[in-house]
């Protein structure tokens, strides 16, 4: 059996995935907390205030990483969902459904920090601006996926239905985004792109560090949720019972 194939089968095995996640989670948390503390300390205390927005610009160090995460988690959820639907990978089903609440939480954080930032800079908590609106629609898409998943009595069936919905949403997200941008835009265009950035490095570096910390947070949270779900679904298996009663990791 080839190496790639073996790894693929290992991920399909609940006890292996449970143990592997249990081993990995502390490291993810460690990196997440270290990077998060470093990036936030740099961003909130050391980085210079904006010449126009003053100290309120520091909300950016939470707002922008959350906004990046809100979209990338949706993409990952849809990829997991695709694997679940096409290859019937149980672990992918679980991870797709575990991603939804995390992504929804990041979307909510983006909306809340954005509206708190909007008050001092735009003079209002909420405007029907393109990015705000598409972020709100994204939250509804997440809530739809979560609602559909929980509406089914059989968790597996619900996960597969919700995975299909997430794929439909993935096709629609660019269309929704561009239609809303075309409809009304007030928000500044993106400042950080692949070909460079219009943010000064003294503010960009802490931003990127917090963004990286957010990715590790997602990884740790995703694997923790996956472990709980694996235990729940395998509660009749010997390895799960042994772990719960004997504390064998």
């Amino acid at each position, binding site marked *: 059996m080839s190496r790639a194939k073996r790894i693929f089968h290992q991920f399909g095995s609940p006890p292996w995935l449970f143990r592997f996640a249990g081993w990995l989670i502390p490291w993810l948390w460690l990196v997440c907390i270290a990077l998060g503390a470093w990036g936030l300390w740099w961003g909130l205390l050391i980085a210079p205030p904006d010449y126009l927005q003053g100290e309120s610009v520091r909300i950016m160090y939470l707002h922008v990483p959350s906004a990046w995460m809100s979209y990338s988690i949706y993409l990952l959820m849809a990829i997991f969902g695709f694997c679940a639907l096409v290859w019937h990978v149980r672990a992918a089903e679980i991870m797709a459904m575990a991603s939804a609440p995390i992504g929804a939480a990041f979307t909510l954080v983006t909306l809340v920090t954005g509206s708190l930032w909007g008050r001092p800079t735009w003079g209002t908590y909420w405007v029907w601006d393109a990015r705000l609106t598409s972020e709100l629609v994204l939250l509804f898409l997440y809530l739809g996926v979560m609602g559909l998943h929980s*509406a089914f009595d059989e968790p597996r069936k619900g996960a597969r239905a919700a995975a299909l919905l997430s794929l439909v949403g993935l096709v629609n997200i660019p269309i929704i985004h561009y*239609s809303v941008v075309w409809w009304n835009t007030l928000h500044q265009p993106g400042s950080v792109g692949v070909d460079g950035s219009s943010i000064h490095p003294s503010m960009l570096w802490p931003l990127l560090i917090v963004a990286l910390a957010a990715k590790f947070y997602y990884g740790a949270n995703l694997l923790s949720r996956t472990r709980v779900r694996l235990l729940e679904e395998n509660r009749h298996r010997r390895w799960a019972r042994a772990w719960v009663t004997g504390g064998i990791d």
Partner: protein
Amino acid sequence: MSGRVLLPLLRRDLLLAYRRRTELLLPLVFLLVVVSLFPLGVGPGPQVLARIAVGVIWIAALLATVVSLDGLFRSDFEDGSLEQVAVSGHSLARVALVKALVHWLVAGLPIVLLSPLLAIWMNLPEGGLGALVASLALGTPTLSLLGAIGAALTVSLNRGGQLLSLLVFPLYVPILILATSAVSSATDSLPYNGQLGLLAAGLVAALTLAPMAIAAALKLSLE
């Protein structure tokens, strides 16, 4: 699957729809009631009504579509005929396309036909009527196709109706934006071909992609 099977299916579904006339009329009555509430809510001033006319008519059309979607696969699912079609070996995607077509004929087309009346009620400015009818004619089939995905996903749930609206309204956002923008351009005597073109593009995309998603969702629900 050839037309030999699709046409009888189309005829059967239309006949069933005709036999359940009251059920069919309810979403349309709902549409009329919703639109008629707006003048009561915002006041009968012609200027105010003219300003919000297109938004009100389109949102009422979205609501009426979702109300009628809940029953799209329900009775076929409950009496087992959907399962029979699924195991018959015919392409479920084409069956889904026929179902969406029937839904549009009985729930979408009447909205298009009623829209001139709604335009008069809401005092839609003169130049906007053509654009309103055209945007509804191009937009409502897409609503039926996208909505059928949601209906197929929720058909095996007991209370799928409320969930259905949460699933499909976010998908309807681009259609609502394009359609209302077309009518606003028309009332301002601006060209609106671009918006109608994009609506038509959306319809073509939905026609090609949605049936596959509906078929996959139906297979999941029948598991």
